[in-house]
């Protein structure tokens, strides 16, 4: 299973690099850091498929770090919800896949999250509906820099009080934000302890280990707490010259770099 997920994640990574090259778009590093999380979410954790994408009881995934939406577009394409061919519209003028998402731009994008710090509260509202009215789970992916938004902590205080055990937060903790290290900008640490002390069932995992992600990314209905997973990740993960280099928050790859990436991902 893990081997298959790894192959899938490599394909998603290459497609991401390719569309970033074609569109000359930014935010590739933060998209690459969450690919393994998305792979486990869509092929393991969530009840989301081409068949149920409009069903009221589908699980909800909110890509709260909207600047990395390209990673979700590609994931949805490999999941069959978009066509792979449609990805060529990414960041194209007049296209349906904007660089940051717009509401209902394509099926499977639940929310327009270009402004950080909104996704968790929206997810809380959905999770209440998922418990009181319908029957579904909600997964919200945040960036570490996003946790500097005060509204994240408003929602973080609310969800445990209302025992939203159908709500999971994953923090893509790649240790970077636009202009520097997240921990040099704000006192992020101890991040796990913060979530734990707010009343969340908290795990800290290697965000590139399928074993660790699979072991933690499930909805525990025996618990009466929402779940927070701090996933330690590497910005630019998978492409050697992009890893942990924050220039890839802005840069897009050249044709030569695209070729090297393909080779490194074993997809030649």
């Amino acid at each position, binding site marked *: 299973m893990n081997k298959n997920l790894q192959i899938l994640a490599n394909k998603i990574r290459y497609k991401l690099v390719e569309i970033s090259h074609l569109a000359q778009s930014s935010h590739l590093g933060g998209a690459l850091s969450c690919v393994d999380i998305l792979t486990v979410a869509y092929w393991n954790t969530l009840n989301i498929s081409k068949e149920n994408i409009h069903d*009221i009881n589908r699980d909800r995934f909110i890509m709260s770090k909207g600047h990395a939406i390209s990673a979700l577009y590609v994931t949805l394409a490999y999941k069959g919800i978009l066509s792979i061919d449609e990805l060529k519209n990414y960041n194209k003028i007049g296209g349906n896949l904007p660089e940051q998402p*717009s*509401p209902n731009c394509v099926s499977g994008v*639940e*929310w*327009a999250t*270009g*402004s950080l*710090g*909104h996704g968790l*509260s*929206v*997810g*809380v*509202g*959905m*999770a*209440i*509906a*998922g418990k*009181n*009215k*319908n029957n579904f789970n909600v997964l919200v992916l945040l960036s570490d820099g996003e946790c500097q938004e*005060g*509204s994240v902590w*408003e*929602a973080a*205080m*609310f969800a445990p009080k*209302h025992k939203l055990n159908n709500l999971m937060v994953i923090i893509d903790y790649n240790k970077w934000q636009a202009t520097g290290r997240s921990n040099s900008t704000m006192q992020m640490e101890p991040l796990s302890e913060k979530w734990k002390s707010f009343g969340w069932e908290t795990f800290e995992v290697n965000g590139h280990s399928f074993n660790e992600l699979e072991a933690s990314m499930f909805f525990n209905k025996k618990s009466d707490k929402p779940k927070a997973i701090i996933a330690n990740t590497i910005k630019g993960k998978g492409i050697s010259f992009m890893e942990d280099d924050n220039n890839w928050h802005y840069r897009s790859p050249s044709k030569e770099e695209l070729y090297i990436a393909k080779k490194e991902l074993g997809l030649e």
Partner: protein
Amino acid sequence: MRNAFAEKITSLAEKNNNVVLIMADIGNHLFDKFKEKYPNRFFNSGISEAHMISMAAGLSSCGYLPICYTITPFATTRCLEQIKVDICYHNMNMILVGTGSGFSYASLGATHHSFEDIAILKVLPNMKILCPGDSIEVKASLEMMIANPSIYYLRIGKKNEPIINNKVPKIETGKFNIIEKGNEVALLSFGNILPLSEKIYQNLTKDNISTELVSCISVKPLDEKYLKEAFKKFKVIISIEEHSLIGGAGSSISDFIIDNNYMHNKHIKSSFHRFGIKDEFLHISCDQNFARKHFKLDVDHITSIIKNKLNVNRD
């Protein structure tokens, strides 16, 4: 107005299972009955207005009709981006209720005054703005909004305001409520200042000036059909609001005048004058009446200005 709101929403929620009431730690015991009857549809978001709005958007996306309630500055400008992005951009049905609008909480200082909320919210696409003038209009507005889900901002006052309407008006977006009909002067009253406008109406009527008293509930959209007729008919039209003159309801009428090229239309006989709050914070301890007087939102002052204008127009 707020008691009328609490009473009406409690009865409307009985007929509509999708109504969810969210308040941000305000209204001590005001919603006890609602809480008791619908415990799964009542939430105190805590002192977390940004969270309240985004959570409401999430609920709305799943078919609920959320109603968010708190003191006007905290319901509007405090969480403006959440209203813009999660409600208006996503076009999520919800009713945003600002209570204690204008100078209703004058004694609490400018942190609790709201004179900018209409100006700021009216620029948001998909947003409709209703400003009822008494508790009868509050209840009728709520009934209309629940029956016609959309995005509404309901701007209300505090409690124990006098009731001006003697019958329940039909509320529609884009429609004003004509309370008294007249021919010479039109008093366009926006929201919670209706009792003061009614006193001006009484003064003018006593002096045999035929005056129309209008509660302009629908601020966005305006009642353009009414305005088009009014500018052909009245000698003097005035707008009165407990809101800044910059960007307020009167300013929307100014836009209407310009957009319809009334400055150069020989059929337009009306002169138009706006009364509202000028560009200034209040720093002193005061109550609502004091604050209104400070900004010349005063029955005698406005009455005399109208009479002057009428005389000028008669000459």
